[in-house]
């Protein structure tokens, strides 16, 4: 039932505002609203009840194992939320003067420093509001760098075929052509293809390492050297940073710029789709181009750095300073982890992934890269099951939901058929991992007996399998009042 269906004309959550609007002094009638928008008219309790019950229809980290590959669905410490919502912080106006901002600014400055150290980069800007905006900032800086040198013939960004969709989309948003580089059968980049693609038109390459194939690109140094020799720069998609925290640093691998997904690696909430935060770190040569605002210090007080102090900056990415409240949560998380904690994150997320991979292989499932170590995530392909039992990755995914487990990422990366990209994260206990494996085995059993039944899953959720095709064909994108529909 939609909230609109609880609505009755004249009903109100009375405590929230006086009923009648006062006069709008000085505003010409022509500029005033005539027709009242049909927002819900409900009592406070009705709204509370509706949204409480609705929430119960979600899977979430707080209720289920959620091994969504590439998304790092780990525990979001509750303290991060509480502390970012302290009255003094949550009520701070973004344009408050420095005199009333030292607490906040000091935290942001320290976060910049922490992220520099973690990534091995020279400078960090916290401005980008999610991974994709971080990518934008990164590629825009690469472009600004080439432009500043008068090197304007570079028109291409190289992107491995396994890359996340945001990578090619970002290249285009920055005015580049995205050129795909194939991966080899072992998951590493095809060096010959890379070699062939490099040239004076190459502005740079976007890589993640570990890649979205769940393996570590072993020849990364060689790639870096080759791209640099060709005059291109290296962009690091930090979505998979969780795998290598405190073990190896993008800066040390030769990357020129990196974005981080704080909503992944630093465990800020995924919030049903966001918000995130996608700070960017750069090597020395890109430093002048970092997006503003940033936080500087004179060693004692903290202050904002904006276009004035950073004339070569690619500019602003948001009206204020990015997703500040998310950055605060990441700061709290980073402080709770400390240096040792960071490394343990990499260690145990890697342990969990390798354990799952091994157990799944032992149970007869097919690893996409059986010769490789898993990083913090790994891929299995269900193409055999699809062929032999007639149930594909989607069927496994939907049936897993019935077992109280959120499905892994399915059908991404695109180059592996019928794939599951599985990322358990370090915060899951072994019991969860075992439960997943048991469920996979059981589903395969079920399919042997009755594949049709598995294809009909899920059975235990608020709805059964939804008709996506109809959703896209018969667009119903908003509730309409009865009178309008008729």
């Amino acid at each position: 039932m939609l909230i609109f269906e609880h609505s009755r004309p004249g009903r109100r959550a009375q405590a929230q505002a006086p009923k009648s609007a006062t006069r709008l002094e000085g505003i010409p009638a022509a500029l005033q609203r005539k027709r009242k928008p049909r927002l819900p008219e409900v009592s406070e309790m009705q709204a509370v009840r509706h949204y409480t019950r609705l929430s119960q229809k979600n899977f979430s980290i707080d209720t289920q194992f959620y091994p969504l590959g590439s998304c790092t669905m780990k525990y979001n410490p509750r303290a991060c939320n509480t502390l970012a919502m302290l009255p003094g912080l949550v009520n701070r106006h973004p344009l408050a003067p420095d005199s009333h901002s030292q607490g906040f600014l000091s935290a942001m400055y320290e976060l910049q420093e922490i992220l520099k150290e973690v990534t091995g980069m020279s400078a960090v800007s916290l401005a980008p509001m999610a991974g994709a905006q971080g990518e934008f900032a990164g590629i825009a800086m690469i472009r600004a760098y080439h432009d500043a040198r008068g090197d304007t013939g570079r028109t291409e960004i190289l992107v491995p075929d396994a890359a996340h969709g945001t990578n090619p989309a970002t290249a285009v948003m920055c005015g580049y052509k995205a050129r795909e580089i194939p991966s080899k059968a072992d998951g590493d980049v095809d060096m010959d293809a890379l070699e062939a693609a490099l040239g004076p038109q190459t502005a740079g390459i976007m890589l993640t390492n570990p890649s979205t194939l769940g393996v570590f690109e072993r020849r990364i140094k060689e790639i870096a050297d080759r791209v640099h020799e060709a005059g291109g720069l290296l962009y690091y998609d930090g979505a998979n940073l969780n795998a290598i925290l405190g073990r190896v640093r993008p800066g040390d691998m030769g990357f020129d710029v990196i974005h981080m997904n704080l909503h992944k690696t630093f465990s800020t909430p995924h919030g049903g789709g966001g918000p995130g935060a996608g700070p960017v770190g750069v090597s020395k040569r890109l430093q002048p181009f970092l997006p503003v605002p940033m936080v500087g210090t004179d060693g004692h007080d903290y202050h904002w750095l904006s276009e004035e102090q950073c004339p070569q900056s690619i500019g602003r990415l948001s009206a204020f300073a990015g997703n500040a409240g998310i950055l605060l949560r990441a700061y709290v998380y980073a402080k709770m982890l400390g240096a040792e904690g960071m490394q343990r994150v990499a260690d145990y997320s890697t342990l969990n992934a390798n354990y799952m991979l091994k157990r799944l292989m032992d149970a007869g499932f097919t690893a996409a890269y059986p010769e490789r170590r898993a990083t913090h995530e790994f891929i299995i392909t269900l193409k055999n099951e699809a062929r032999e039992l007639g149930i594909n990755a989607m069927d496994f995914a939907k049936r897993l939901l019935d077992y109280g487990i959120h499905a892994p990422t399915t059908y991404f990366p695109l180059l592996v058929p019928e794939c599951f990209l599985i990322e358990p994260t370090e915060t899951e206990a072994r019991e969860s991992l075992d439960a997943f494996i048991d469920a996979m085995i059981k589903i395969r059993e079920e399919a042997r007996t009755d594949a049709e039944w598995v294809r009909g899953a899920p059975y235990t959720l608020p709805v059964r399998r939804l008709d996506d095709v109809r959703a896209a064909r018969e667009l119903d994108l908003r509730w309409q009042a009865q009178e309008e529909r008729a």
Partner: protein
Amino acid sequence: MPFIPHTEEELRQMLDVIGVDSIEQLFDEIPAKLRCGELQGLGSGLWEQDITRLMQDKAREDGQPLCFIGAGAYDHHIPAAVWQLASRGEYYTAYTPYQAEASQGTLQLLYEYQSMMTELMDMDVSNASLYDGASALAEAVLMAVRANRKSRSRHILVPASLHPHYRATVRTLVKNQGIELVEIPYDRSTGQTDLQALAQHTGQDLAALVVPQPNFFGVLEDVDVLTEWARANGALSIAVVNPLAMAVLHPPGEWGEQGADICCGDGQPLGAPLSSGGPYFGFLCSKQTLVRQMPGRIIGRTVDLDGKEGFALTLQAREQHIRRSKATSNICTNQGLMVTAATIHMSLMGADGLASTASRCHSNLQLLVEKLTSLGEIEPLFSGPVFHETVLRLPLEPRRVLRTLAAHNILGGYDLAGHYPELGNALLVCATENRNQDDIDKYRLKMEQVLASRRQGACATMAKFDRE
């Protein structure tokens, strides 16, 4: 304290299953020379108790001043229920609803959000959010360039009365695609977009015209005229509005004869706390015909295998995870949680509640202006009608006034000297419904003292006063 559940025993057992001796071995594909040592300068992890204390101290340091700054972020009352619900784990810790059947909570809520937003804006369709108002405008500009079949231009007319940070953000985000922002000056007496200056572009090939309402000065633009001008000139119109204002002002869908084509803005006034500038959320609505050019996620209502109603992501072919380099945008993670809060906020406030809040803000502004101008040396700078926020001319540099007020825990407004030096001693002030009569009197009193001490010309007095 990395929140890891493994016991020593489990670690050993798991390593055994994998067939390695140590975790170290799991990293053996990483070239040894790349491996880093211990991270420096991070210190050891803090317990929750210690970080709690640290953050409390930081929060206390920033105080809780009385705030009369608006300029794109507004201190509104948020019903207590909003965040108690939005921070429920099932909303807070879910991700993008890729598995629709396990995400009906988030999906239905987003569908409700789309419904509310289109109602408020009187537009046909809404997406499920973008980052913030400024970046939403950039997406709207890109969308307009893609969507405007009549024009081959990459020129966008942007009023100088639009929030300077919005202009800067749009510039950053669109310039690499060869899109040019053409500034339209404002009328120095009314504060509105200068229609004569606009007229000079008549007949040019233009992709779109941006129409802010209210504009950065709080001044109301003549939106019907601007929208019609755009249509007459083959440009799409892009409304940039304060969503709370739309509870009482003419909504974009009704501007001109056929309404604005695209409308966007920042959702902060709908339940997002100030929070130093974010997270807020950008909203984006458009006419039905433009829906396939929209960036960002869109939720549709559909049915399940049993014919039961349900909700799912739809029109995904616009998005990067399907269309990759041909997507309408690179956006992936959006601002879902803020939209959750906004949806609950709008449900609790209803149309009447939002209208009441908007009009109380407006009354408070009237009162503030009245009190400050009664001091004799302060006056409104523009003659155009304003909503909720306005520019005052001070008899001395705002910078100095603001510093003294801040020393008394009053944030007196936003100094326009940086962005609009031509306006002289111009201060942008705002008084939301959260500022009461006492607060306004307090502001007036301190302002009076500042002006008085200036009249005495005594720097010494001033300095003493600063320290008080």
